């Protein structure tokens, strides 16, 4: 059963008439005549989890926002897909934008929002055109709802929900300080809002049309439903495929990724975008693709974009490559992240060049200590997970490059 990718293989399904012929906007009147609270309850019952990397309970987030006083409410859709190894939202925006639009219409009705914002990363020009054309074609379906599509300008940090809101408000994409009480929702233009990933909102039509039980029947008990998993790197057929949670990772890599390329052996996999601890080949054999299992392996599912390394990959060089990305993309607000990422990159570069010493590991340890939870947003802890994962699980490769191995 497919939740979001049922129409991906139908040619021209981005076209309004083709989408409509294949079930888009079906029974929309009936759904919109339901009480908004009823839709919120269905979504909450389905235990839909956010697909942007956090995996938080979507229904609980909606209920939290609705409980907060406000004059207007907004829906913000996060299409700033900049996590390395992740390219799933691109498929929805290109191949089936009407699914997203339908999800926005239903979600806005449930949340009482008359305006919705969609934020797409600046590099996704084709996706931006696809979505704006689809919104224009589907004007008659909107029933008064206004959907504004914003383009980013090349910042990974704008995928962080408060930085995204700052960007839409016209300011620099700096994440905000977290509110003192968990009951306080995110606010845009001083009014309450929710920020949800493109795929999360695109899952709403299936859940509302087929019922919470249908969604719960897929996946595992704690991670119900499906996710558009991506596999890339040293595989024969890098691709994006929707499978239910609980699918074995090694099966996904072999069945859909075509196995490790050039008949080489598997070495490591980063399970969910660059910001999670890497898995060794032994761990990959037994791990399943769901939030709980990966947590048991001291990693995280993140966005489900798997990056596969073959036996010839140099892990120090891979770490350097990813750290350069993190240093470039740090917004620069907090001292630990701004200075620490750059410093860590220079240390790893020194090791890769063959000039490293054992004391460099101590410095990296101290930098990781400051990156872990001492900053405003979760960018720095992600960098710390990255560094720690590589250094602990592939320590021998780093030691082999040191100037003096004693």
């Amino acid at each position, binding site marked *: 059963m497919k939740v979001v990718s049922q129409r991906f293989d139908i040619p021209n399904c981005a076209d309004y008439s083709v989408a409509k012929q294949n079930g888009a906007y079906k029974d929309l009147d009936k759904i919109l005549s339901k009480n908004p609270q009823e839709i919120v309850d269905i979504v909450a019952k389905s235990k839909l989890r956010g697909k942007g990397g956090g995996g938080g309970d979507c229904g609980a987030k909606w209920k939290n926002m609705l409980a907060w006083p406000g004059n207007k409410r907004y829906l913000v859709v996060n299409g700033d897909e900049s996590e390395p190894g992740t390219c799933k939202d691109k498929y929805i925006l290109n191949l089936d934008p009407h699914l997203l639009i339908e999800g926005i219409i239903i979600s806005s009705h449930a949340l009482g929002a008359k305006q919705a914002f969609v934020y797409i990363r600046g590099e996704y020009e084709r996706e931006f055109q696809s979505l704006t054309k689809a919104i224009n074609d589907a004007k008659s379906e909107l029933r008064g709802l206004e959907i504004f599509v914003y383009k980013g300008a090349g910042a990974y*940090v704008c995928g962080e929900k408060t930085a995204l809101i700052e960007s839409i408000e016209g300011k620099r994409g700096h994440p905000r300080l977290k509110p003192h009480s968990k009951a306080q929702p995110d606010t845009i233009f001083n009014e309450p809002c929710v920020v949800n990933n493109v795929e999360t909102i695109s899952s709403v039509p299936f859940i509302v049309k087929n019922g919470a039980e249908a969604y719960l029947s897929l996946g595992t008990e704690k991670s119900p439903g499906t996710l558009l998993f991506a596999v890339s790197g040293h595989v024969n057929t890098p691709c994006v495929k929707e499978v239910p949670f609980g699918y074995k990772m090694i099966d996904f890599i072999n069945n859909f990724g075509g196995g490790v390329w050039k008949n080489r052996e598997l070495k490591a996999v980063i399970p969910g975008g660059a910001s999670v601890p890497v898995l060794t080949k032994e761990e990959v054999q037994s791990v399943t693709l769901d939030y709980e299992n990966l947590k048991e392996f001291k990693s995280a599912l993140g966005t489900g974009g798997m990056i596969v390394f073959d036996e010839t990959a140099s892990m120090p060089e891979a770490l350097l490559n990813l750290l350069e990305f993190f240093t470039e993309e740090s917004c620069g607000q907090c001292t*630990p992240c701004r*200075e620490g990422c*750059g410093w860590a990159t220079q240390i790893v570069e020194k090791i890769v060049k063959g000039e490293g010493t054992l004391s460099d590991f101590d410095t990296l340890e101290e930098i990781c200590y400051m990156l872990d939870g001492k900053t405003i947003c979760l960018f720095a802890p992600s960098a710390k997970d990255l560094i720690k994962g590589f250094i602990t699980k592939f320590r021998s490769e780093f030691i082999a490059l040191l100037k003096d191995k004693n």
Partner: protein
Amino acid sequence: MIVEIVVDDKKISVDDSGNLIDELKKHNIEIPHFCYHKALGVSGNCRMCLIEVVGQKRPQIACDTPISAGMEIKINSELTRKVQRLNLALEFKNHPLDCPICDQAGECRLQEYYMKFDLSGSDVDKNWKVDKPKKQDFGSGIVHDASRCVLCRRCVRFLQNCTKTCELGLKGRGEWSEISIFGDRKIDNDYAGNVADLCPVGAMTLKDFRFKQRVWNLDKQEAICQKCSKGCNIQIWSYTDKNTPRQIYRFTSNGDDFICDEGRYSYKNEPFLKSDIASGFSFQGCDLIVTSTLSLEEMSAVKSFASKVGLRVFGYSEFDDENFKENTNLKLRQKDKSSNKKGLEKLEFNQNLNDLKDDIVIFHLGDLENLKTKFASKNVKFIAPREGADIVCASAYHRSGHTINCDNEIKFSKANFNDKTSLSIIEILEKFIGENLQIQKDFKCLL
């Protein structure tokens, strides 16, 4: 509401609606910080004020921790010390070793916190430090050094929230971020100098003070600016030794409040001249005029002197600047360019100058040109802290005194220098009369 919290196992009482950093400062407990400022609000990005809060998994920033009754914080624990030391190490990673040439040395927060919380060596190669431009002219006498900047953004927030002139912004991202002006639109407002006072490090400095003197050589006195009727709190920084007479090097704000550039640079016009009472000087047959630049004590002394020697005394307070314009949102500067007009009114000086005698003596702590023009038809003798005055007296900065500002507040300029270059007005009058004058001490009754 006043609540009790525990700091390092000691109970103290704080106001739970205030900010934790400010409340602890009232108890003389200093929490290191760069970006927080009372007038600019919480920014939370320097992460220097991380402290251990008992019951929380991670250290919290003190500037954004809500005060709750019974909360327990540890500011000298191993955890707090560790995060402070490591945060400093991260600040120093890209910071240039400019101390020998940096004006901020001696009043630099990085130096202060290093001596208190760090004292470790550095293993960062100087070629690893990010290269940023130095000595940039941002206008209005502000010089910016981007490599020293700790990106606390106090300067940006001041110009955005206080003056609302928004001349500064951030350029770039990550460790290549810099504070920058927009294109060639330089800082151009009447409060630009505060940017240099607010900067905790030597990134924003004043061209006027550049390379002039080391702050540890200067003597600091708390005073009140006398340039207009607002009476802002300032600090007088001056230098003297056996061979040189006392010289003021700069005025700064007191760190919490702001001052305008006109007041800041007015120190240039306030030399400490030697008093010289010419032997032929006499008050006989003169009308005395007190201007609104004198302190309440001096005004009261002149009144007492006048009544003892049987002379008339009047008041003069027309010092409004006709070309005055306020073009920012901060609105500290006032049209009235004298410091104590309200004092003159409250002490009930007669300001009707219609039947003045031909011979007058004017007591005035300021420039004399306008008064010379105004009283050109009279035979005027000046008692003022200016060259060419008939008696040179101490300026308003050379002595202590009270004034009443435009908001009906009593302001006290505490400055008191042990080396007396010149005599104050009170001392001059007491010399003439040969005895102590009766000077009003309590001024609260005037309000």
